[in-house]
């Protein structure tokens, strides 16, 4: 994309402006993730009528409601299941799921591994803020050990999922991670996910400043974003000998590619076979 067109991206063209300002708390990283998504959609020149956003329940799920396109706000933990049905029924649509760490990994964990296993061509953005933000700050499957939440008043003692490793192991076509501070890089990663002809799972490290940040004294949004940067390691450095990063840093960028057969073709063949069997009356 040329610089000129980058500069003509007007986010308002993609927002339901009558719903603005949105309901997210001051400094919530979910808004930045939304910008990156809309910017990617603009740069890929996806027609709004062909765009279908499916989102679950949570602050993250609510993000989808502000997009001026076809949107489905579905039951908690099930956006991947709805998206699977939608994409199979309407392969012409560009389907994008917006979900949270609680939505996607806790109540919806099963749907995630099966979406990865099937490898149907749509994209999933999981906004990971390490907490159940919408319901007041309960522990989530990605909460860092020893952090405080309303359900872990003495600190979290459970290990968290590395959702990218989980998705890659379950067979997702493309797996990536980015932080909200790196907006252009995040936008590019989302574009890559959308372009990938298979299931793309993208973890976006977001921040819940108001609840999680405050409870754990992680500072205001700028501090939280900068500490996220300090604890990630860009894939640019993956093959370098000298890695000036702490060993437990999360990698960002495209983390796995799995060029497996996409699901829809086989599914359609299977449908034909079934119809043949039905017609022949056997």
């Amino acid at each position, binding site marked *: 994309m040329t610089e000129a067109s980058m500069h003509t991206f007007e986010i308002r063209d993609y*927002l339901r402006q009558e719903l603005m*300002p*949105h309901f997210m708390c001051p400094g919530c990283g979910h*808004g930045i993730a939304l910008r990156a998504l809309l910017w990617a959609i603009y740069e890929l020149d996806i027609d709004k009528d062909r765009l279908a956003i499916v989102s679950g329940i949570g602050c993250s799920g609510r993000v989808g409601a502000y997009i001026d396109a076809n949107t489905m706000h579905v039951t908690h933990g099930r956006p991947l299941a709805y998206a699977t049905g939608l994409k199979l029924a309407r392969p012409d649509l560009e389907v994008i799921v917006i979900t949270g760490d609680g939505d996607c990994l806790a109540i919806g964990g099963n749907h995630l591994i099966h979406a990865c296993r099937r490898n149907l061509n749509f994209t999933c953005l999981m906004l990971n803020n390490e907490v159940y933000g919408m319901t007041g700050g309960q522990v989530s499957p990605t909460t860092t050990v020893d952090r405080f939440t309303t359900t872990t008043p003495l600190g979290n003692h459970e290990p968290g999922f590395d959702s990218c490793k989980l998705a890659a192991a379950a067979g997702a076509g493309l797996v990536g991670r980015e932080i*909200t501070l790196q907006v252009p890089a995040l936008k590019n990663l989302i574009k890559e996910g959308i372009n990938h002809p298979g299931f793309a799972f993208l973890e976006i490290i977001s921040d819940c400043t108001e609840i999680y940040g405050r409870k754990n004294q992680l500072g205001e*949004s700028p501090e939280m974003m900068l500490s996220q940067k300090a604890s990630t390691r860009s894939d640019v450095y993956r093959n370098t000998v000298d890695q000036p990063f702490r060993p437990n840093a999360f990698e960002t960028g495209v983390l796995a590619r799995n060029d497996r057969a996409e699901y829809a073709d086989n599914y359609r063949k299977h449908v034909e076979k079934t119809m043949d069997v039905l017609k022949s009356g056997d």
Partner: protein
Amino acid sequence: MRVSTSSAVEREPSPTTAAEPTNVLIVGVGGQGVITVSKVLAQLCLQNKLKVKQSEIHGMAKRGGAVFSHVRFGREVYSPTIPLGQADILLALEWAEGLRWLPYLNPETGTFISDTQQIIPPFSCRNRKRGATSNYVFRSVEQVKQHVPNSYAVDATGMAEGLGNPRAANTVLLGMLSTALDFSVDDWQAIIAQSVPPKTVEVNRQAFLLGREWIQSDAHKEEREQVEVAKPPPAPVVDDVVIDLEITEAWCKGCDICVKMCPERCLALNSSEIVELANPDACTACRLCEWLCPDFAIAVHVHKKETAIA
């Protein structure tokens, strides 16, 4: 960067009547040959049975890094570094580096010899605004002369270019340095010939003589007085674009992200915790505030002047 101190000669018991050593400070930026120049001088001193100590900072191979070398020689030398204000000669391969080290020169008896060449490092421009001037230090030759009467500014690089090899500029300066010291021309030339790449021996021989003659010969008197240092170019006038920051106050939640993340510190929160453009002149239209605002409350518009909104 590495600081090395080499004592070229074993130290003898201190003679009670040790003459003060001669102090030569050679400075420049990485890649110019400061170390070569100081090694030539140190070798020459050894050959003339003098004690010599040389101490340098090098390793700044990337242009822009400061490089210096202290050379002290005489009947006895104890400390490897020249105290402030006690250098007898300051030989600079780059103009601003010469100015930087001026305080080391003895203002009354010292000699200042500097190439007028200016190598402007990128970090001398701290202002990222389009058309900003750099902070590269400027002093005219006259200003330096007020500080150190015995000063020579010379376009050594230009002279070496005239001989067909600008890299011989440091040998031109060695020729000039030789006029201030008591060593024979033959000794200088022999050591220079050993120290430079074999293919460049002849051009360096000529460069040395050219530099020496430039200071000694009356034929160059007028030329010597006319040397000027280029003034840093004035800031280009940038008026082709207008930056217009559109703030949607109704959407701002006062989270402070843009205020803290703006590299130019243009933004501030007002008394109602709503963002405002406090320093419009500093804005470079980098768009970080637009990208990072979770509430889409800032849009950066860059208009070409013709279409600019007044």
